[in-house]
């Protein structure tokens, strides 16, 4: 708990917390504006109303979340490397893996908050704008959980990458490369490509159904824990130099 409080205090003036909250607000605003402007077009698509609500708006929301994750993960470790503060942490009686875990936890909670804000907007749209009787609360909840689970491998991967490079531009570049390659590969049905965390995150955005794909959800969880485990191992076993 003490490590978590310390990590939260370190975040002061870094902009990490406002950034991910802003991502949530922007995602929610995008959903509202898009549905107001394109309501008729969207509802005339040959899809069930719930599929329209959840899959047709998710693309842009997911891109916002992805960039939010990439930038926040870079910022959360940039503050450690700027001023070589991390060197001091290695010289203090604090568990470096615990520090890593707390950063991961803070970003996870912030991402979850952003996703909840975005889905609250979808809830409002669903209740007020979908044809009467077509809104399904459990489908929305399932999709919220699914979009969170599929976003986690990217978050876990980006925290790992950011913790290993002193120069913030390297993880940022890896994040952008991940986004672009993910966009190019997301429509492929080759299962092997699911090892790419950005492809996994993009899968719900390219799907035409709001029903979660269990295989992708399981792969997402496995990747999340794999990258987290790697990060914790590196934090424990690799020295500062």
């Amino acid at each position, binding site marked *: 708990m003490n490590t978590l409080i310390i990590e939260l205090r370190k975040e002061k003036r870094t902009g990490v917390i406002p950034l991910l909250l802003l991502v949530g607000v922007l995602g929610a605003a995008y959903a509202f504006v898009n549905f107001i402007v394109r309501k008729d077009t969207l509802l005339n698509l040959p899809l069930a109303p719930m599929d329209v609500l959840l899959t047709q708006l998710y693309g842009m929301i997911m891109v916002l979340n992805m960039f939010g994750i990439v930038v926040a993960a870079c910022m959360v470790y940039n503050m450690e490397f700027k*001023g070589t*503060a991390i060197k001091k942490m*290695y010289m203090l*009686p604090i568990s470096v893996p615990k520090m890593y875990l707390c950063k991961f936890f803070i970003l996870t909670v912030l991402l979850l908050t952003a996703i909840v804000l975005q889905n609250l907007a979808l809830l409002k749209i669903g209740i007020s704008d979908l044809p009467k009787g077509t809104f399904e609360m459990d489908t929305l909840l399932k999709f919220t959980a699914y979009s969170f689970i599929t976003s986690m491998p990217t978050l876990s991967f980006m925290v790992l990458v950011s913790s290993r490079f002193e120069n913030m531009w390297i993880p940022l570049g890896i994040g952008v490369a991940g986004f672009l390659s993910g966009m190019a590969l997301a429509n492929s049905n080759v299962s092997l490509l699911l090892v790419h965390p950005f492809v996994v995150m993009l899968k719900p955005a390219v799907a035409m159904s709001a029903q979660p794909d269990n295989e992708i959800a399981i792969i997402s969880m496995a990747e999340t824990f794999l990258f987290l485990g790697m990060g914790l191992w590196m934090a424990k076993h690799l020295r500062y*130099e």
Partner: protein
Amino acid sequence: MDYIITTEQLTKKYKNFISVNKVSMHIQKGSIYGFLGPNGAGKSTTMKMLLGLTSPTGGSFTVDGGRFPDDRISILKKVGSFIESPSFYANLTGRENLDIIRRILGLPENAVDDALELVGLTEFGNRLAKKYSLGMKQRLGLAGALLGRPPILILDEPTNGLDPSGIHEIRNLIKSLPSLYDCTVLISSHMLSEIELMADDIGILNHGRLLFEGSLDELRQNAVQAGFAADNKISSANLEDMFLSMIDKDNAARKQRAQL
């Protein structure tokens, strides 16, 4: 002898370069140990190994009976350190930076004010650390090392970047620490004149090898025997000559060995 830090044949090798070569040091409890050597001699690397920042490739060491990595936390609880350049969170104020360290060490809130006062940074405590001058950053780094008055202090060239009055002030502070609260200080410098004013014992390092270890009096006696002092009177200049001659001799011997 009651040694608080000992190293046995401590070695750090990089690919084609030996930074620290079989160094065996013995630091007495309650003393100020001056670690002397030219730039690149391996002083900082030795200190980094003592703090677990880098792992040795050979030999071993103990800090108050503990060994890395098994006793990392218990060792670091007893050691205040300052290595190479000050480390700080640029987004936080000086006071907030020290508060982070205070929380990690589990110290009372007044420990921050105490450390700020010790290094003369009280009036700048609420300024962002990134806006500090080099000397102020140096003082902040020192405050971080002194926080909670730890029993062991490892300080790597702590007066770098300070103005002459700052150097004098910090030197006096370091000199007073063992009597102030019974701590042991390992301090490095490339200037014998500086170490001479503070240290009880000295270790001279060149190209990773420990050329001399002993008390300041022993070094003075060596200087007399080596003919660096006229009328058996040792001045700072004589000792400096002795130190430089030791380094030159070792460098010449190294060159000779390399040519063979």
